[in-house]
């Protein structure tokens, strides 16, 4: 079980928005570890940038949940569902952009 705990605690996934404006590194349980904003992000309004960040966060967390489910399934031979790794968050739907 220690292996699993480490795996989940150290898991992270990255997502980048269209045109590379926003890069997000997500951690387990809804954590956000990094938000990088490229220069072209400041061409947007504050409202638009906020929306792009939220969408990119959703992508990063979705990716993290899918990757964790795959790794756990491979390691245990059991079918793990991505929503099991949301840390209480509701399931992420849709594909990563």
């Amino acid at each position, binding site marked *: 079980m220690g292996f699993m705990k480490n795996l989940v605690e150290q898991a992270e996934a990255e997502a980048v928005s269209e045109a590379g404006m926003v890069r997000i590194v997500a951690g387990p349980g809804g954590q956000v570890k990094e*938000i*990088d*904003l490229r220069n072209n992000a400041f061409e947007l309004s*504050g409202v638009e940038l906020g929306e792009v*960040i*939220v969408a990119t966060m959703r992508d990063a967390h979705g990716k993290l949940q899918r990757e964790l489910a795959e790794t756990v399934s491979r390691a245990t031979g059991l079918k793990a569902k991505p929503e099991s790794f949301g840390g209480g968050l509701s399931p992420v739907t849709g594909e990563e952009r």
Partner: protein
Amino acid sequence: MSDGHVPDLEEMLSRLDQMQRDAEATLAKFEELHADMDEVEAVSEDGYITVRLNADGQVVHIGIAEQAMRARQTLGNAILAVVAEANAAYGVQMAEMAQALGGSGVDIQAMVERYMPEDVRERANRTLGRD
């Protein structure tokens, strides 16, 4: 069963039945408490950045005032700090829900007080409008 008592089939079935009823009651209570959970909104000290989480703890809105856009180099980290604050407030709310579900068996509030740094807890309570 360490006392040597071997339960008969009827007793075991009755226990299972009770366990199922307890689980269903807990689930119903969870649904009720979850429905009552509020969205959490955290705001940066200067008021320029707002982060809102829905009742599931997902970031659903980030508001960035135009003044904050001038910060450029530090904007990412400033947003990160407000997200962390919203997450902490959500965690406090979840702990309260878990406490209400768990009854008196485990003191979850005390665990939160022990493990969540005081300044984070204070900010979380402020975010939840409890100062």
